[in-house]
């Protein structure tokens, strides 16, 4: 068996599905954030795989992945500082407790 594009795509689909499951069902807001990271990575695998198999002479896919990683970093930093801020106010990291709009 020789590796082809759809192997990678299937893997990324599975990871994406797991990520959706986590994002929908985790009670802990950190778990939700981590699931979102999983979904980002599924997309990244797709981008690099398309780049490698369909347009190997150019690197646009990889360039976009760099952007995704950078934005994920920005997202994580802001998200996590929000989580800490919320944790300080309501002393909990569970999403169902986060039902007030002001701290």
């Amino acid at each position, binding site marked *: 068996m020789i590796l082809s594009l759809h192997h990678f*795509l299937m893997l990324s689909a599975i990871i994406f599905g*797991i990520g*959706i499951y986590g994002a929908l069902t985790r009670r802990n807001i950190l778990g939700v954030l981590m699931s979102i990271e999983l979904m980002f990575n599924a997309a990244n695998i797709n981008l690099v795989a398309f780049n*490698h198999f369909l347009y190997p002479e150019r*690197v646009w896919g*990889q360039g976009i992945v760099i952007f995704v990683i950078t934005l994920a970093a920005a997202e994580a930093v802001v998200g996590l500082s929000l989580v800490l801020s919320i944790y300080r106010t309501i002393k909990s990291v569970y999403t169902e407790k986060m039902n007030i709009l002001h701290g």
Partner: protein
Amino acid sequence: MEQSLLTLIFGVMAALLIGLSIVVVTSRSVFRGAIALTAALGVVAGLFVLLGADFVAASQLLIYVGGIMIIMLFVVMLSQRPRDHMDRQTNEQWVWGALFSLAVTCALIVQFRAVYRGIFATLPPAPTTASVGRLLLGDMVIPFEAVSLVLLAALVGAVYFGLSKKERGR
């Protein structure tokens, strides 16, 4: 021989990645989940190497594993106590969530199998650092600058949210 070796490596990495991802979304201890996610991101970096994207793989390790995940673990450590994993970690809609994600996965797989079946690599993997660099500062220079602005905004925002109320007043 070389091809089957690569397939074997891919198989191992795929199994690892799926297993680690399941740990991420099901583990009772958030810290263990975060560790599993870190390992999963490392495996993704391995997949990037397999796909000939060496620079991206190194960036993945440097930024994701060495940066984002450390901050993530940091927050986990600040907001949890070691005994918190006694709590239930999924909410009551987990059945619907599982069904929905299964549906999405199946749809994606069916679609991918239909459209992208049997496409093989035409060029062997080659070092990409130089070309990625040219791309980022050439064709993609505007998004590149935009992203740097986003990062700055994120930095300011993170510092603001990180301050306690008392310090914000000052």
